[in-house]
């Protein structure tokens, strides 16, 4: 690994905000070290079908950045790498990183996928949220950057088939974690978000089991990021929008908004900012894919607040998507395996029961390990576990430690334009810090 002892900026997280910050600051002429804990950069955005309100394909926005990052002469990318320790010395930071073992020699792997073909182990594929499987030797997804294989040793049976199939002799079962020490001038935290686990909302009947129907286990109740995959051009079943339970085309679907958001009982009282809009967008994509399909959205308030959002909401309403202001009490399962939504309609005061072919839980966003990274960095978090912004009105990219800045959804749920704005804001704060330290 050709790693220099010193970089101008360390960027933690290779999702959209981290990539944006890396490219902007590198374009301004600074040396960037970008660290991503997953085996590929791209974050959540690369898993998404299209973005609201413009319905551009998310891949068209993400893949060029994913291709540009490793190509940029001023960016050093380390994937599958975590930040272990950070110490501030004067105005700079001593950083200890650990590169996790891929069990594949990264420099040798050509991403041909032969190891994947011969591997006999099948486990749920993270990229598809378990809708389909992957092998124990695998490339995370088609558009991964870097497009390199890795071996999931927890599930590997050590049969050695991949080793024999690899044309480059790149498999190395003896690979070990590597510690890397670097000094950086400034740090940007872009660790992003995680999804709320819908299993925790027991009344909604989601179990994550996508293959069988038992009592209270209904594979036709999925979460919105799984639905995102079903609607994506690179969808897992190679045909848009089949329900996982039996492969039927769902003709009536419902969205349950605020699953895991605005819900004190689940410990997340705040609103997740994006679920209204992504659900409206999904309803549009669904009715475009299945023209005879009917979509219903159960909501508390429709929060269509960004540029072009209200117009988008109005258009989708006019196209016939049904909006019901109501709180979903529970989701039951009918004898035919169809989910039944039981909701109080706020406008009629009635309890209504309706059967659907598939129900989508519009899950909220939670911090992605920001408490842990905050501890390592010594920055403060807010009451919900997001990175705190001590000068939020005047300088939102600032954290409680001078020289450490924050980008994107590490500060809380937000949509893509807001996330990008905060990423570029972190860039200007980094440049200001680096320049002032130098003078």
């Amino acid at each position, binding site marked *: 690994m050709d790693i220099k002892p010193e970089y101008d900026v360390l960027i933690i997280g290779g999702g959209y905000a981290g990539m944006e910050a890396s490219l902007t600051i590198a374009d301004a002429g600074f040396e960037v070290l970008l660290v991503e804990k997953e085996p590929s950069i791209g974050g959540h955005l690369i898993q998404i079908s299209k973005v609201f309100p413009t319905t551009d394909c998310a891949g068209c926005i993400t893949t060029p950045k994913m291709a540009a990052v490793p190509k940029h002469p001023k960016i050093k990318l380390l994937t599958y790498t975590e930040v272990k320790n950070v110490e501030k010395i004067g105005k700079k930071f001593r950083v200890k990183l650990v590169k996790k073992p891929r069990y594949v020699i990264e420099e040798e792997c050509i991403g041909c996928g032969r190891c994947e073909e011969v591997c006999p182990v099948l486990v749920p594929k993270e990229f598809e949220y378990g809708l389909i499987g992957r092998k124990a030797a695998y490339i995370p997804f088609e558009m991964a950057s870097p497009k390199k294989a890795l071996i999931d040793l927890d599930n590997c049976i050590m049969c050695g088939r991949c080793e024999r199939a690899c044309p480059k002799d790149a498999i190395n079962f003896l690979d070990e974690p590597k510690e890397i020490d670097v000094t950086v001038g400034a740090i940007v935290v872009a660790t992003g978000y995680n999804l709320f686990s819908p299993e925790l909302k027991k009344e909604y009947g989601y179990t994550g089991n996508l293959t069988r129907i038992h009592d209270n286990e209904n594979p036709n109740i999925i979460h919105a990021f799984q639905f995102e995959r079903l609607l994506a051009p690179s969808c897992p079943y190679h045909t848009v929008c089949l329900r996982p339970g039996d492969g039927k085309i769902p003709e009536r679907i419902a969205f349950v908004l605020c699953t895991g958001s605005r819900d004190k009982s689940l410990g997340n009282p705040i609103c997740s900012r994006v679920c209204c809009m992504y659900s409206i967008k999904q309803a549009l994509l669904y009715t475009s894919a299945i023209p005879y399909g009917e979509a219903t959205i159960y909501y508390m308030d429709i929060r269509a607040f960004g540029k072009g959002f209200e117009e988008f909401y109005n258009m989708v309403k006019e196209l016939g998507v049904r909006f019901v202001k109501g709180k979903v009490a529970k989701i039951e399962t009918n004898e035919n395996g169809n989910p039944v939504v039981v909701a109080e309609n706020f406008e009629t*005061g009635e309890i209504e029961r309706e059967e659907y072919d598939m129900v989508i839980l519009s899950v909220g966003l939670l911090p992605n390990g920001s408490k842990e990274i905050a501890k390592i960095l010594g920055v403060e978090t807010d009451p919900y576990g997001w990175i705190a912004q001590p000068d939020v009105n005047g300088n939102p990219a600032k954290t409680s430690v001078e020289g450490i800045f924050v980008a994107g959804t590490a500060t809380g749920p937000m949509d893509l334009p807001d996330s990008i704005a905060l990423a570029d804001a972190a860039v200007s704060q980094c440049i200001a810090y680096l320049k002032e330290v130098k003078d």
Partner: protein
Amino acid sequence: MRERVGVYVCHCGGNISDYVDVKKVVEAVKDLPNVAVARDFIFMCSDAGQDLIKEDIKNLNLDGVVVASCSPHLHEKTFRDAAALAGLNPYLVEHVCIREHCSWVHSDDPEAATQKAIWIVKSAIAKVSLADELQPIRLEMKPEAIVVGGGIAGMRCAIDLAKAGIKVHLIEKKPFLGGRAAQIFKLYPSGKTGSDLVKELVDELKRYPNIHVYTNAEIVEASGALGDFKVKIVVKPRYVKEGVSKEEIRRAVECCPVEVLDEFNYGLTNRKAIYVRESSYPEEAVIDMDHCIKCNECGIADFEQKEETYELRGSMIILATGAKPYEPKEGEFSYGIYDHVITLPVFDRLLAVCDGKLEYEGKEIKDIAFIYCVGSRTEEHEYCSRYCCVATLNAALGALEKFGKLRVYHIYRDIRAYGKYETYYEKVGEEGMLFIKYDPEDPPVVERKGDKLIVKVRDLLTGGEELEVPVDLVVLSVGMVVEEAEIFNMLRVPFSRDGFLQEVHPKLKPVETAIGGVLIAGTCQFPKDTVETTASASAAVGRAETYLVKGYAELEPFIAEVDPEKCDGCSVCVEECPAGAIRIENGKAVINEALCKGCGACGALCPTEAINLKGYKYEQFRAMIDILKEA
């Protein structure tokens, strides 16, 4: 003539291949005489797709590339960069669009879409066959920028630029910096006052001598292009002697006998004809000549001061001109008919200026109704103004905190307390304030009964029950509309449908406008709260620094080129050039490369075909037309 062209047809993950038969497109061109290879792939823009092209360039020695995929707006640069990495001049890549132009618009007729794609690809092959190797134009970028608007966005921009060592000219039309944020009673989520925030920014701004502030300034001319903008401003005099002390100013304000309504407080209080703004900048007084009686009681007046004109230069311009509150129409929820129907910004100032008890127009206020979405989500302004829900909840809480017991009704459509602002919504509920959801088709009506205002509203939360809510004050939660500025027209920046300034792309170029070097920050782009405003300001600076800190910009080489052999100096082009980039020297046209925008107007009009646009030559177009004639 290019002899070894590679052709690459993208599926765009089904976006194209669902309607355009990409294999058929490849088949149709792969045997053309100057095509060395033709392939299709699921995502040409991905790493793997780009590698495919790069490998072919090296292994097959390609001298031209055609990529047929999405719009060149998205990925032309991606493919040019890929070609350059493989050693091919990037301008020998022709990117054509078979998604927006074929699959998306002809999804009803896949066969015709495929045929059209074939012709588009064939014409691109003809064009690239005659392409020249070109070099990008390098523009030096002096570290100097112009920021228009001295609100919190403009100040944030100026500070961030200055910290990076860039000289800034900050232009504000009002006599003081601070903008509308200064008027906010209490900011969310920090709880500071608007003027606290302004003061903090002013304190920071004062530390940087490379920020030049021009208040009371009017822009009279703006011109130029990336790397060299010129803005001419006229600074109106303050009519106050220079170098007077703070104490002298204080005394002068005290002595002034003229009292006028203070616009900062929407006329809720008075100010003198000579005045200063606490916690703003500059810390100098100004005389309001519309009201001054020239008595010179203040003793520091200087009525001889004249307007001054400055010509400012900058490599880039950031527009931070802001937005203004929607002004309700006469009679809209009885606004303008009853005194006690006011707007949210006025209510905010009322909270700030009232002491002890909440009073308006001689009446103590105990019951308040807020009506939401006034001037937003309507036929006239379809967009949601984003900030008003939380600002209203926050103002209601602020009122309760400062004045104790109040009965408050929130008459709303959806409460858009997004993200962490949900806690404001919750708090308001806990405080026992009531929510009434109205139907925009049947909006609330405000009437007067005795000394009370009555809001008649049908509440959707109780099955459409007719309610009559008696209150002392109705506060209209007004949206934002763009603040018009002359400079928009001078620079020809485009607007979006909602009347705000249009970014090039909400995700890929979120702070850039279609005019190279002109960026946008804050609420001139769309309604934003203060957090989003300062974030977008810093973001605009971040993007600007890719040029200003680096010190140069590289631009596309597509500019006009004169063949002096053919030019007869008729000067038709000189008259037609919108950029003023052509002059006649020794009887021949000469192009100024820094000014030419490559619009091609000159070439189209030149009677002798002496002017060619680099990358778009006459012979290339003729070759394309020849191909398309067959279609």
